[in-house]
């Protein structure tokens, strides 16, 4: 019998482990003041990946086919972005920041437009938002000299970035499948939110439903796997040392130790499990 307390302790242990691994890497990474933005971007992305893993780990009710891919897709995105930036960190870190600032300016301009027709009640809140947003941009670069790029931040598709970073398989086997859930395409919706009606008489019609997708620790292991991949890539490309992240193995061991007799095994019937298995077959990762 698994108690809430056991799960809570397990989640706390995962978070502590991830935070520790993140700290070790950030401490080891030396900034180059010729282009401090490289440090800023690279460590931020590392922290982002850790955040996604921690957030997912801390919400077992999300370890299912409806929700987990949203996190996992975001994690694959971070991995590809970081991999591509590290190929030419100086140029691409700047590019990454500039794009983000441009997006902030775009939102700012939309809010200013909204302000023109806003009522008295919302005006104050909007003005405050604009002021905060503007200050955030101006602290980095004056908003009125920021280009607004409405295309991809890198000027390339995610597939191209993956190809250049030598992780096309990761894109094909992991990023693309999880993108289906993130974008709610028929690939996902047709499995999780629709299915042929029971009776042959109405078989032409698929019934909307909310598929039963139970909590599956496999999703947690996938999150750990992608975090490992990112940490290991950082070890090799940024720290120039052998990859040393073993969070996935550690989590697997912890599950064995903590829940071996609880019967809390992964649900082999879950649709996502199949999707996850496919992702796990990517041997090139």
């Amino acid at each position, binding site marked *: 019998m698994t108690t809430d307390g056991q799960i809570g302790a397990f989640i706390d242990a995962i978070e502590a482990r991830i935070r520790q691994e993140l700290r070790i890497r*950030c401490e080891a990474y030396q900034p180059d*003041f010729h282009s401090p933005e490289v440090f800023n971007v690279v460590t931020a992305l590392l922290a982002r990946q850790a955040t996604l893993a921690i957030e997912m780990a801390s919400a077992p009710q999300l370890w299912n086919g409806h929700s987990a891919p949203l996190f996992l897709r975001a994690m694959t995105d971070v991995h590809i972005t970081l991999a591509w930036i590290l190929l030419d960190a100086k140029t691409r870190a700047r590019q990454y920041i500039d794009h983000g600032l441009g997006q902030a300016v775009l939102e700012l301009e939309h809010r200013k437009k909204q302000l023109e027709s806003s009522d008295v009640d919302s005006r104050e809140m909007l003005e405050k938002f604009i002021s905060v947003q503007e200050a955030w941009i101006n602290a980095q*670069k*004056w908003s009125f000299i*920021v*280009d607004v*790029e409405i295309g991809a931040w890198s000027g390339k598709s995610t597939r191209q970035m993956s190809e250049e970073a030598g992780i096309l398989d990761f894109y094909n086997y992991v990023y693309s499948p999880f993108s289906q859930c993130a974008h709610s395409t028929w690939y996902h919706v047709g499995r999780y939110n629709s299915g042929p009606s029971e009776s042959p008489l109405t078989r032409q019609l698929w019934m909307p439903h909310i598929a039963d997708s139970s909590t599956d620790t496999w999703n947690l292991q996938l999150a750990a796997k992608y975090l490992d991949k990112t940490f290991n890539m950082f070890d090799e490309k940024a720290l120039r040392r052998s990859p040393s992240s073993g969070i996935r193995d550690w989590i697997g061991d912890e599950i064995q130790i903590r829940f071996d007799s609880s019967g809390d095994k992964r649900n082999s019937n879950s649709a996502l499990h199949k999707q996850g298995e496919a992702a796990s077959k990517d041997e090139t990762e």
Partner: protein
Amino acid sequence: MTRSLVHRPVATTMSGVSLPLCGQGSFPDIATRLLHWSQDYVIFTISRLQKSSKSQVHSTFFERVRVARCIGEDIAVWVSVRVTITGNCVKKKANSQNKNRRVLGGYKKIGTTFVPPMIHRVGPANYTSWSGQTMPELIWWDVIIDRTSRGFASKVAEEIAKYFKTRDDHECWWAFISDYTRLGTDDMRGLKGHLRQANILTHLNESLLDFLNLYPACPLSKLLDEPPTSIVDVDYLQRFENRMRDLEGKHSRIAVLIQAQAIYMGFMLGKFYVKKGLALADFPEVEKYPATELSRRVGASVCATANMMTGSMLPKYSEDSWVLYFWQRSLELRPLDFTHLENP
């Protein structure tokens, strides 16, 4: 070069450009033409506009003024502005335009990029970060002011300017720390001799010593008779760090005062002139910044002028060896603490 960048345009702004502002319930439609921008111009423009019926002034104009004001304060650029006054008939058209104003309407779309008006009309602007580059270049003035007084800092500026005024073929104003990397042994010996004769070298070195011990490779270390010991005074480091927090805000009092110090060097060297009637002509008022309206105007002009200086007198950030050293050494003095990652 310095004269053409600073002196001429400021004068031109007020005397050489006729602004067609009639001040009779009119409406300015914005266009741009090349004109040097300064805070004075913006204030001048606003004050003229306020004489007209404010309700009839197109809001876009104020938006432009707001933007230009930021530029005037923070970036040395050549900005083009032409203000055309038309009558009420245009106002109607403009109001309807305003209602349908498109987001990023003034931006120029090039491929998937929207280029801001200030860039596509004026050309690329070199962005010099205040906190990243200009502030570390001017920080020694704050060290002196902190350790002694503003009066003593002014005296130092005057004496350095006196020394270089007659023999200087450099374009710099000797306000930035990087300027002192140009000095050879003889030049430095001559400068020290001059400062000694003026009876300020000892006091100057005493005021800089703690700072130079933090940053022993600072070009100003050559002012000392002995190399800095590099022994870090922890209390001073804390004090210095706290001062930097204030200095990071470009418009804080102490930040404006060190920018004013640089302008003062320009005056003293005879490389910078201001036309009577401009805010900068009331330069001594900066001492009261930001307590009085005039001091705020002077302060804004000081910031704008300091920007022009950085644009023409500082090396590119990535080639600014003093600034790169400053940040690297600062990291050694105060290593990043990542414990928060583990102990939120």
